[in-house]
């Protein structure tokens, strides 16, 4: 042919070619300049220029070339710029792209790691379980060396992350596969009135028609025009169905160059009423010695190269043909001017024994023993049915020895999933598209029923529901379900493993011998042999290798492929980037209305769940001292607040708190602890009675949502007869705690409508009134910090105003803000425990110092049985106050309490107390150590041991609580 424009191996224009010869594209391959045409893939442009070797294999670093010339080609993973693991036979060439081979050194041609080939006996499958194990001190060295041999590309940290927003789709019918069957099914469904999403993994619709003969191309043009003209069909090309999940929830990966980046991916989450699976068939390699040499290609590979890209795959060919597609490949080869030296017809006993060569195939030995020198070996050994979507729908395919492939189990499919096309059987193009049309129409019919069922399940529609007894009004897709006619199934010779040892998994470098060795070692099933050898665990996930692997394993065990089966097909069908799965990050943040003031005054933020809170404003110890000596303000808006109304509120409080609530008068507030049904402390808080049937409950900040659900669970499922209305008001109120000796003075200056004297408004009471001009504020006197304090709940939009007013009006009293850290110190000085800090997931009520609160004489309450039993056998640790002997040592929280070598407890909270000038702690200890005055040994994280005394009270400061009650 001579030197052609477009490469030495470029043919004259072919009728079905997808390249645009008027547009050339320059790129580089391993540093050398190359030119391709628009529409070329990287592999086709390089093949046109005569390149044959594209990569080195995983373990043995054997040279590899094109095998399938499709997305699923294992020999063609390349690096494009900073993007690793690009499928070179699928990705189009782009101007200026710097394409390089992966994991080769110093070059693709002379790869020194090919030394692995000589180490092959040591590097059999599973070698890493046996070699490189001793000596153990050499592991870092082994890891450093082995890491260099991993066959991946290079990841650059400078690549900007791509996170595309996901799309939601709700087609009536989703058709997976855009070949002739998929297109026919989509058309029939759309014409029956369904909305259709047609998903095709290649860049164009048409499947195998694209590289077919004149009649195929004409059929392709016809179907393509019809699909384009049908408004109800949406076509996604370069898109892959990743998996089918419950309820026909289907994940589709869409690759969109226009979304940014070479290969930006987007996830489409589709809920389809019915799914039509029409993925066609994937050609299968044949196992023989030398089957991985560059120049050994499957028949679809040569037909793609010749017909789509006008590329000659070689000059002198030997062909193994077992089917009509192989015969068509022979015709294509001759038409392209390639010498076809021998056609081994497997249907007549022909076979390939082995192929030989170094950097590519040089000669082939055939069944009769003759050795033919050639540069191209074409294999048409059979087809694999990609049944994964059907497997995911619950229908395990069955192997047919007659067809030499797995066929779908139609009866096992749910009514919402149909299979058609080559996956379902054989036949002429007309028979296949006829079956697909019937499937598409049936899919639309069933989709209508599913849609009707969904609409009738909507409340308000149910009364008008038409009785579902078949016919037009049916909501059951399996009613009058049409059973599609069976497609014929052609017989096909079973060609899996030939006479010599070859590769079964090209990506993982697993040979038939490796699989047989695995079986001999006892891994005698498809699942075990897979895991031991890693066969089918590569990028192709079994598409090219699982049936050959099953055949080899079956033969080694002595059973049939049907009995052995293949391993489970799992999503995703192809690799998907984490950016596509993640989508844009949504990280909601919750701020109180006082946040602008905190930021303006140097608050150091603390992340507490979704809330941002002020941890401190520069000096937490000073903030704490100010509370004890003057007056401080803390923003406690995240505290959970639940408004409870109804005649049964007191019953609910009795049921969920461990203490008693029936006699709580209006205007009073009580502290309560909730335990779960296993007796474990769940939450604590304060609840006040605002009216006859009106209470306000507070919970911990982190428990706000969970306790609301807890209440609703009991009310809805266990006590549905009770009348209690629960309204979460956590964010309806801005909450702040004003605490310290000068609190009353400050509050009197800003409060109207409330007598704040100690006689009129004692400790543990609640009032409502006007603060700083704002009505409907709730004030309750509680004492988390141990000082005279009022917790204010202000309608949220006035929170900042009230906060600023208090600080302003109280300036002469020393009013200053204090943060979460100061509050932690203050509450620890008072021995108030924090749920989840001083208790854990196993701490039952009596282990939290709650003996005084748990009223076992109540009729029933959440957790009562477990608490009663805990009380009976006095089991479990105890919460105690601890005073380290050396007050200057602040033990780290979670420091262990030791009795000899035995762990007898741990420090749960620990701070330096500015009030006392020494460290103060709370701890969980075994009951035998809980007696006040007991000396315990604390093991600091450094290993140093210190002593500490169990205090008489949990409170270290003002144990009688007098300061709160003034």
């Amino acid at each position, binding site marked *: 042919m001579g030197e052609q424009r477009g490469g030495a191996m470029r043919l004259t224009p072919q009728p079905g070619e997808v390249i645009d010869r008027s547009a050339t594209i320059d790129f580089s391959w391993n540093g050398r300049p190359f030119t391709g045409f628009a529409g070329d893939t990287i592999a086709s442009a390089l093949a046109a220029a005569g390149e044959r070797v594209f990569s080195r294999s995983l373990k043995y670093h054997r040279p590899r070339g094109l095998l399938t010339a499709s997305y699923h080609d294992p020999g063609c993973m390349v690096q494009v710029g900073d993007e690793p693991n690009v499928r070179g036979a699928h990705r189009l060439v782009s101007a200026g792209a710097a394409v390089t081979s992966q994991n080769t050194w110093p070059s693709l041609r002379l790869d020194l790691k090919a030394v692995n080939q000589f180490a092959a006996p040591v590097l059999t499958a599973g070698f890493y379980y046996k070699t490189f194990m001793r000596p153990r001190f050499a592991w870092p060295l082994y890891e450093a060396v082995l890491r260099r041999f991993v066959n991946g590309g290079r990841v650059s940290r400078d690549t900007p992350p791509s996170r595309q927003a996901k799309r939601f789709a709700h087609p009536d019918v989703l058709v997976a596969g855009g070949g002739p069957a998929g297109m026919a099914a989509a058309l029939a469904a759309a014409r029956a009135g369904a909305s259709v999403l047609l998903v095709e993994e290649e860049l164009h619709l048409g499947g195998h028609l694209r590289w077919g003969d004149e009649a195929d191309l004409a059929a392709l043009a016809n179907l393509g025009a019809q699909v384009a003209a049908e408004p109800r069909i949406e076509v996604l090309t370069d898109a892959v169905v990743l998996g089918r999940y419950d309820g026909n*929830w289907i994940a589709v990966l869409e690759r969109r160059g226009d979304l940014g980046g070479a290969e930006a991916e987007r996830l489409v989450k589709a809920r389809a009423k019915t799914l039509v699976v029409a993925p066609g068939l994937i050609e299968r390699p044949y196992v023989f010695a030398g089957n991985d040499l560059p120049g050994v290609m499957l028949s679809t590979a040569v037909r793609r190269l010749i017909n789509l890209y006008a590329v000659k795959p070689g000059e002198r060919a030997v062909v193994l043909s077992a089917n009509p597609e192989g015969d068509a490949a022979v015709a294509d080869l001759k038409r392209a001017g390639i010498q076809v030296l021998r056609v081994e017809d497997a249907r007549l006993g022909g076979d390939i024994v082995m192929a030989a060569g170094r950097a590519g195939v040089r000669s082939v030995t055939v069944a009769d023993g003759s050795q033919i020198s050639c540069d191209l070996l074409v294999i048409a050994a059979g087809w694999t049915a990609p049944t994964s979507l059907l497997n995911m729908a619950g229908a395990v395919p069955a192997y047919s020895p007659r067809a030499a492939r797995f066929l779908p189990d139609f009866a096992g499919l749910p009514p919402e999933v149909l299979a058609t096309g080559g996956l379902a059987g054989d036949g002429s193009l007309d028979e296949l598209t006829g079956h697909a049309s019937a499937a598409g129409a049936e899919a639309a019919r069933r989709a209508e029923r599913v849609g009707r069922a969904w609409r009738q399940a909507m409340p308000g529609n149910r009364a008008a529901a038409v009785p579902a007894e078949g016919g037009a009004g049916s909501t059951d897709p399996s009613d009058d379900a049409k059973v599609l006619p069976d497609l014929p199934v052609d017989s096909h010779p079973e060609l899996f493993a030939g006479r010599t040892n070859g590769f079964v998994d090209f990506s993982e470098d697993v040979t038939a011998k490796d699989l047989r060795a695995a079986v001999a070692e006892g891994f005698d099933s498809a699942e075990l042999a897979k895991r031991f050898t890693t066969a089918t665990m590569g990028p192709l996930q079994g598409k090219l290798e699982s049936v050959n692997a099953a055949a080899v394993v079956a033969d080694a065990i002595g059973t049939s492929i049907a009995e052995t089966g293949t391993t489970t097909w799992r999503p995703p069908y192809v690799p998907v980037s984490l950016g596509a799965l993640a989508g844009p990050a949504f990280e909601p943040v919750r701020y109180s209305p006082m946040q602008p003031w905190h930021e303006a005054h140097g608050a150091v933020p603390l992340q507490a769940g979704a809330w941002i809170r002020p941890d401190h404003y520069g000096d937490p110890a000073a903030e704490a001292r100010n509370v004890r000596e003057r007056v401080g303000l803390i923003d406690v808006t995240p505290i959970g607040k639940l408004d409870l109304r109804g005649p049964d509120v007191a019953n609910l409080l009795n049921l969920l708190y461990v203490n008693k609530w029936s006699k709580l008068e209006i205007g009073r507030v009580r502290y309560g602890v909730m335990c779960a049904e*296993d007796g474990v402390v769940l939450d604590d808080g304060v609840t006040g009675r605002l009216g006859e049937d009106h209470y306000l409950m507070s919970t911990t900040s982190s428990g706000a949502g969970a306790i609301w659900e807890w209440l609703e669970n009991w009310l*809805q499922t266990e006590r549905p007869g009770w009348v209690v209305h629960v309204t979460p008001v956590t964010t309806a109120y801005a909450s702040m705690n004003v605490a310290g000796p000068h609190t009353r003075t400050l509050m009197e200056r800003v409060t109207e409508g409330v007598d704040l004297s100690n006689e009129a408004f004692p400790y543990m009471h609640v009032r409502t009134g006007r603060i700083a001009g704002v009505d409907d504020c709730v004030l309750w006197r509680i004492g988390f910090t141990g000082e005279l304090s009022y917790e204010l709940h202000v309608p949220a939009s006035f929170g900042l105003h009230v906060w600023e007013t208090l600080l302003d009006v109280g300036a002469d009293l020393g009013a200053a803000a204090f943060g979460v850290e100061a509050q932690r110190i203050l509450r620890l000085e008072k021995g108030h425990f924090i749920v989840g800090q001083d208790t854990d997931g196993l701490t039952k009520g009596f282990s939290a110092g709650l003996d005084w609160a748990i009223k076992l004489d109540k009729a029933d309450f959440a957790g009562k049985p477990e608490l009663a039993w805990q009380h009976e056998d006095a089991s479990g640790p105890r919460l105690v106050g601890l005073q380290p002997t050396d007050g200057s040592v602040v033990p780290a929280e979670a420091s262990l309490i030791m009795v000899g070598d035995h762990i007898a407890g741990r420090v749960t909270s620990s701070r330096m107390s500015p009030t006392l000038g020494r460290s103060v702690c709370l701890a969980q200890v075994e009951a035998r150590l809980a007696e006040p005055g007991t000396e315990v040994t604390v093991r600091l994280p450094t290993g140093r041991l210190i002593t500490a005394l169990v205090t008489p009270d949990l409170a270290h400061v003002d144990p009688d609580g007098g300061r709160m009650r003034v």
Partner: protein
Amino acid sequence: MILLPCPWCGPRDASEFGHVGETPPRPDPDTVTPAQWRAYLYLRPNSRGWVAETWYHRMGCRRFIKVERHTDTNETRQASQRGPAARAGAGA
């Protein structure tokens, strides 16, 4: 992915719900033995077939709903008053 038949909202994706699970009747706290109570807390039949279970429509109507789910196929249907086994013609 699983479509749950919320009686208030219609068929909704399971990601809107919290899964509470099978909820056996609560034993009488006064007469229950520790073994019975802990069986109530922790043990579930986990049978194959239709089970009645509770879900909480956290991102919807916020009701605790009972549905029946087939643990093999994840088909769901509205719960019947008498429980999953009592339905005529219930599948295997």
